[in-house]
């Protein structure tokens, strides 16, 4: 296809250069993407597509080009010059000097257009991949006087000056791109840490010969040639950053913000000598800026500086002034950012912990921080908390970050951990309107948090996070009581219910010993669960059912030497009290709830499966009910959950009961005929388990699947394709295995999946069929004697209806293509039979039923062209539309339509637009 594209390219270039209209806005970007892909793949565009050079010089020299085409050309030139060869060619043709000369575009009146400026920047960004480019970048100004109105002095340093100016461009995109490229230059060309100056010089020649552009980590391996240029660039950028950070008016502020963002980029990625010198250059300016106003980028810069060189006294001082800001919200955010970065030092960590806990201290009135009531920070924070909108956001920030404190070394903590936990609990009580426990809290703030779902959720999240902290176990009863209250509160938002259940599950797992929970609480929990499963809101019912499932899945240990016990024991009656509730939920009008109920039931029954417990009458009836759901439920979610249930049962059961075998067969036939593609994918997953079992291969992906908790209506993740090898044990009864797979319906599920119109289904089926073929059907050229014969005799009854017709069609097409080579193809007789519809081949020992064809499984598998099919299926469904060829053809058609506006094509394009 590539060759065809290259043939079209000259015409496309002509169309573009003529300024014809394009099929859509993204065409040029797609074209560039294709060129980038080619470059990355090692194609030399300059050599293979000379028309591009022609195109660039035409556009660059034309005065009337469209800005979009200009921008594209700028980017293209950068791309062409990203390799040294291309660079040399372009420089020799003097296109490079002209293209990257802003003066040229200014004169032509194009520089005003932001898309030209961004094209210039991005072109430059592509270009700057090798030493020559850097030299060009620095030298360019000296060679051509592109800004006649500027003094010579300004022209000394090549393109760096205009680039620095663009960093404060009116267009945010241009400004951001300029910052990005500045960062790129410093990071890409910075000296390697492992190599000394001399050794780098020595290695230079060798490097050049192999890959002259970059090393694996994307940085430039050169030094000597670039040394001078790089030093100049570093000096100029440092100077620029320093100047732009000096406070001034509004315009200056905008400039400073841009520079701060650039600094963050640099500080996180530059290595020591360069980073230190840069830091040294800007520290004074940062200090000054900190005195005026604290902005998030400034905070990021200081913290980035601190994480890179925490021992520097001046940086230490900067962090200290950052953490002594007088604005309560800024202080809170700074403290949170400090701790979130995992920065710790003796002074600041404790300070941050206090700052984060301060709102909790004020609102709850717990007064756990040793603070003077007249303290300035305390008073200003209390004032902020009186305001409803700021109060909620402050408390949420405080709660979200409080778990960071619980993992700190106790020496940094201003109070004990249990105090923090009880403050969070108190906050939750306040949110639900229980103010009796507050003695000296800030009443205005308390008023603001009452009933706030946002605060409730944050506090619950915090409570969940602190469950693993050392003091947590002692608080279990309190947490339980509170969560029960939350679950009983009719005014709680469904999301709060959901969160409360999650927290409860977490704390139950912390508790380890369910018997330590008072019976009354257990009884209350059961009452609440029974009530919530009848809730008017389906979200609440769903969360409740899901909770019961999770509870069943959580294992708790009394002590290390006792056997794990299900957390269901926290409910009176254990899992037996849950099952009726969940079975009731199977009748829920909301499909999500039904699906969750099925999934939860699977989790409650899993221990029985693992222990190989005998099947009861109720369990058998329940399986029948599930199969009914699979065939009758109108929604996809419960049906998916049913297949998932059988997957769990099959993968975790210790023994294969006849009920399980029977029902799996039933699930396979019903699931593969489902209308929902995800049900089909799940069914194929079940088929895969059977396949794996039959092949006695312990697929890692299957095990993972059985172990992980898959959401009842989530799509199963794509398993890794691992072809099975033909094992010795397998050879002995390969035929019998294949026979079993045919009997169990696995083969027909896979075949029906193969011709499914949904790509994920077909792909999965195709992969599994390949696995089957590789494992059980030996290639025809190997001589395995009688075994091979036996395997080949295993036949399959292919019905002449539905999906099977599609299979027959494939076989026919394949046969037609290979007709001439029929002698070498053993199955040609079979294909002929099918074509003629006369029955079966004499070499086959099967018989055909009414309207069915019996054929050898191995032959079938080898004739379906599975390998080609998997390749096609692996491509995305729109790969044809998105191919470069299609793109080029579109551009040509649009260009053609443009020149002949009355053609049918033009009308089509217009129609397409609507």
């Amino acid at each position, binding site marked *: 296809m590539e060759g065809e594209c290259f043939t079209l390219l000259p015409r496309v270039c002509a169309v573009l250069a003529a300024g014809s209209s394009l099929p859509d806005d993204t065409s040029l970007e797609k074209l560039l993407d294709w060129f980038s892909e080619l470059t990355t793949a090692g194609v030399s565009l300059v050599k293979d597509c000379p028309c591009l050079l022609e195109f660039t010089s035409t556009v660059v020299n034309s005065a009337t080009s469209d800005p979009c085409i200009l921008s594209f050309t700028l980017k293209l030139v950068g791309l062409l010059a990203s390799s040294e060869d291309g660079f040399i060619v372009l420089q020799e043709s003097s296109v490079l000097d002209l293209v990257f000369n802003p003066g040229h575009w200014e004169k032509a009146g194009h520089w005003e257009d932001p898309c030209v400026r961004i094209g210039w920047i991005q072109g430059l960004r592509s270009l700057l991949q090798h030493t020559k480019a850097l030299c060009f970048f620095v030298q360019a100004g000296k060679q051509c006087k592109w800004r006649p109105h500027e003094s010579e002095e300004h022209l000394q340093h090549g393109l760096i000056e205009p680039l620095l100016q663009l960093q404060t461009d009116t267009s945010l995109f241009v400004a951001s791109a300029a910052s990005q490229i500045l960062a790129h230059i410093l990071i890409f060309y910075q000296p390697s840490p492992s190599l000394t100056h001399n050794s780098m010089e020595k290695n230079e020649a060798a490097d050049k010969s192999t890959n002259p552009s970059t090393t694996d980590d994307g940085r430039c391996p050169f030094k000597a040639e670039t040394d001078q240029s790089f030093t100049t660039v570093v000096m100029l950028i440092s100077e620029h950053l320093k100047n732009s950070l000096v406070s001034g008016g509004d315009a200056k502020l905008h400039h400073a913000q841009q520079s701060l963002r650039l600094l963050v980029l640099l500080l996180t990625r530059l290595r020591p000598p360069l980073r230190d010198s840069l830091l040294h250059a800007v520290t004074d300016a940062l200090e000054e800026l900190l005195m005026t106003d604290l902005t998030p980028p400034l905070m990021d810069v200081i913290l980035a500086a601190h994480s890179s060189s925490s021992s520097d006294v001046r940086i230490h001082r900067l962090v200290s002034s950052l953490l002594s800001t007088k604005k309560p919200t800024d202080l809170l955010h700074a403290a949170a950012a400090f701790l979130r970065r995992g920065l710790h030092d003796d002074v600041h960590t404790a300070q941050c912990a206090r700052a984060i806990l301060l709102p909790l201290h004020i609102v709850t009135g717990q007064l756990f921080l040793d603070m003077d009531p007249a303290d300035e920070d305390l008073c200003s924070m209390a004032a902020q908390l009186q305001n409803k909108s700021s109060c909620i956001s402050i408390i949420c920030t405080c709660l979200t970050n409080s778990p960071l404190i619980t993992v700190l070394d106790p020496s940094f903590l201003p109070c004990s951990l249990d105090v923090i936990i009880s403050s969070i609990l108190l906050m939750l009580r306040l949110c639900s309107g229980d103010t009796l426990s507050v003695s000296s809290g800030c009443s205005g703030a308390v*008023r603001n948090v009452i009933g706030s779902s946002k605060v409730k959720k944050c506090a619950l999240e915090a409570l969940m996070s602190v469950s693993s902290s050392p003091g947590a176990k002692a608080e279990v009863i309190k947490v339980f009581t509170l969560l029960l209250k939350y679950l009983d509160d*009719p005014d709680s938002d469904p999301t709060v219910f959901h969160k409360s259940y999650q927290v409860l599950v977490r704390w139950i797992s912390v508790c380890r010993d369910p018997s330590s929970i008072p019976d009354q609480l257990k009884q209350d929990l059961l009452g609440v669960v029974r009530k919530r499963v*009848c809730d*008017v809101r389906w979200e609440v019912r769903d969360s409740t059912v899901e909770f019961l499932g999770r509870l069943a899945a959580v294992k708790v240990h009394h002590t290390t030497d006792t056997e794990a016990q299900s957390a269901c024991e926290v409910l009176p009656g254990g899992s037996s009290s849950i099952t009726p509730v969940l079975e009731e939920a199977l*009748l829920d009008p909301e499909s999500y709830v039904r699906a969750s109920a099925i999934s939860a039931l699977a989790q409650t029954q899993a221990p029985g499966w693992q222990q190989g417990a005998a099947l009861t009458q109720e369990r058998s009836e329940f399986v029948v009910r599930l199969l009914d759901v699979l065939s009758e439920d109108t929604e996809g979610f419960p049906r998916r959950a049913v297949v998932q249930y059988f997957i769990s049962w099959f993968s975790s059961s210790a023994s294969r009961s006849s009920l399980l075998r029977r029902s799996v067969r039933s699930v396979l036939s019903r699931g593969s005929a489902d209308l929902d593609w995800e049900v089909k994918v799940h069914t194929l997953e079940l088929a895969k388990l059977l396949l794996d079992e039959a092949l006695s291969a312990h697929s890692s992906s299957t095990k993972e699947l059985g172990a992980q908790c898959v959401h009842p209506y989530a799509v199963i993740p794509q398993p890794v394709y691992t072809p099975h090898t033909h094992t010795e044990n397998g050879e002995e009864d390969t035929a019998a295995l294949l026979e079993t797979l045919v009997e169990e319906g696995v083969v027909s599920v896979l075949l029906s999946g193969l011709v499914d119109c949904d790509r994920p289904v077909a792909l999965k089926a195709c992969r599994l069929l390949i696995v089957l073929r590789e494992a059980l059907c030996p290639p025809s050229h190997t001589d395995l004697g009688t075994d091979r014969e036996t395997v080949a005799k295993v036949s399959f009854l292919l019905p002449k209806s539905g999906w099977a017709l599609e299979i027959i069609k494939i076989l026919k097409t394949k046969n037609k293509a290979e007709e001439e080579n029929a002698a070498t193809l053993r199955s040609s007789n079979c294909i002929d039979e099918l074509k003629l519809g006369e029955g079966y081949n004499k070499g086959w020992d099967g018989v055909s039923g009414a309207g069915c064809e019996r054929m050898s499984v191995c032959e079938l598998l080898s004739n379906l062209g599975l390998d080609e099919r998997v390749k096609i299926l692996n491509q995305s469904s729109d790969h044809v539309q998105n191919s470069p060829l299609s793109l080029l053809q579109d551009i040509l058609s649009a260009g053609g339509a443009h020149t002949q506006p009355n053609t049918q094509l033009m009308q089509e394009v217009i129609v397409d637009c609507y």
Partner: protein
Amino acid sequence: MKLYCLSGHPTLPCNVLKFKSTTIMLDCALDTTSVLNYLPLPLVHSPRLSKLPGWISKDGTINLEKELKECAGRLFVDSQPEFCLPEKELLDLSTIDVILISNYHCMMALPYITEHTGFTGTVYATEPTLQIGRLLMEELVKFMERVPKAQSATCWKNKEIQRMLPGPLKDAVEVWTWKRCYSMQEVNSALSKVQLVGYSQKVELFGAVQISPLSSGYSLGSSNWIIQSHHEKVSYVSGSSLLTTHPQPMDQSSLKNSDVLILTGLTQMPTANPDGMLGEFCSNLAMTIRAGGNVLVPCYSSGVIYDLLECLYQFIDSANLGTTPFYFISPVANSSLEFSQIFAEWLCHNKQTKVYLPEPPFPHAELIQTNKLKHYPSIHGDFSSDFKQPCVVFTGHPSLRFGDVVHFMELWGKSNLNTIIFTEPDFSYLDALAPYQPLAMKCVYCPIDTRLNFHQVSKLLKEVQPLHVVCPDQYTQPPPSQSHRSDLMLELQPPPMPYRRCSVLNLPFRRCYERVYILPELANSLVPSELKPGVSVANVSAILHSKDNKHTLQSVPKAAPAPPSKKRKRVVEEPPVGGAPKPLLSGAVPLEPFLATLQKHGITEVKVEETTDGHILHLQAEDTLIQLEEDGTHIVCDNNEPLRTTIRDLVLRFLQKL
């Protein structure tokens, strides 16, 4: 302007407003919480209740065995239940001109006021209020009359004896004013005095004020009232709701610019969100039915029950309750369900449009059609043969002291499978259950009160911005049980004026203006002269004629030509014959020119002293003072009349005459 507060109950108001020359009663609600002190009236003989021990004081001196019975440690009066009436002694109720009713819950004391106080005025209410109010009164009367009690307990009310009784009887107030229920005849007579009004209809009261009901969004036909004169506006807000339930939404904008806003009937359950409670109601109901138990819902026969049924209509299928029967038992059940469907114009927009489909506005019609909901006048008759369990029963009275609910309490109280769900917020559920203790059935309290909560009312008041707010004392402080909840009270600037039972408030606003009409011919005769741009004045000589609180200026009849006879018989009746009125002066005396003029007239020794209001000129030689002030000029001149006249004339030169 005065407000007489005859009830202290914030949601059962009864106030009297004296405004201009009118006396207006705002609602006359009946406080029925007094019935909680009485024993329930069982429809079927209850051995349990009849065996309760009587009360004798510990020292044996007082024996009230027949009047007071003891149950689970509490005393109950064994008598026909009595209600606490609005205060009758605070003012003469016969002077009341009109009674404005805001909703059917706030009119239950009407017969006590209209029939026994000499009331001769008119009662104003909307049609649904009248019709549903009649149903509720009829139900109440039937509940009482169905179980007649011969005796009427009065001994316990004796102050000396009451003091000896244990609480809460001991703390009951105004027990002597408690009255037995009225009769149907009294109800009919009282309701015959009702005049129907529609929303925004303006009714003139004696020409003095205009009253107008506004939709309040709480119940069918519920209203707030605007009472206004030409220059003053009083709003009466009672039982309003901003939630989207069945009634027409609340009209808030018409409440703007009130001088006084009287605020009553906020939610009794500020911490219970109606939506949450409705959800809780449904969950508990489903949970009980699934476990094989029955659900009893003590409720009024109109109001929230419509919303409950609508909610259940949607919930029944989702909770798999399709086969569970729902019974609604009340003497007025049928009328209530049917009435609700015909008051289309009083319903919310959504329900109104259904009428044109045509579809019944409320889905309970469909529940009845599909036999899921059945209604009966009482437990006797058809009900007993149709009755199937497990089931859900809606029946009254929410106090659990009378009505069919008493029977179900006796029937189901012993099993813990059954549940009683309280939805009406008017009675404390623990007090209501007290005479049924010990009780095995589960009790769930889901009070559904859709009236405004404090958050909503603060927002409303911020928008309508009344100058003064008057409200029950209870709204100015947090509820006693939640004393830290400062969000559960009204915080306004200026602070609201609180009232209690028997308070008489002088409303803090003074009437400054009165509208006077002028007849065209008189107006025609006026000759205005412009004082300053935009301000013209004219002298009017006229007769002020006042009738029906309307004031009119009429021309003075011309003096009749002198009668030929010299005899004047009826001098007194002669219209006053005034000469031409003296001209009115306006303007100010400018100091400098005035001094110059004085000098011209030979007054030279003038000492000018500046004061806060103007100047004092001391004519030293003449020993005379001239006080020139913004609104007056005084010449103090002893015994020198010519000088005074001269100065006066000089002053007059500078002034304009009208």
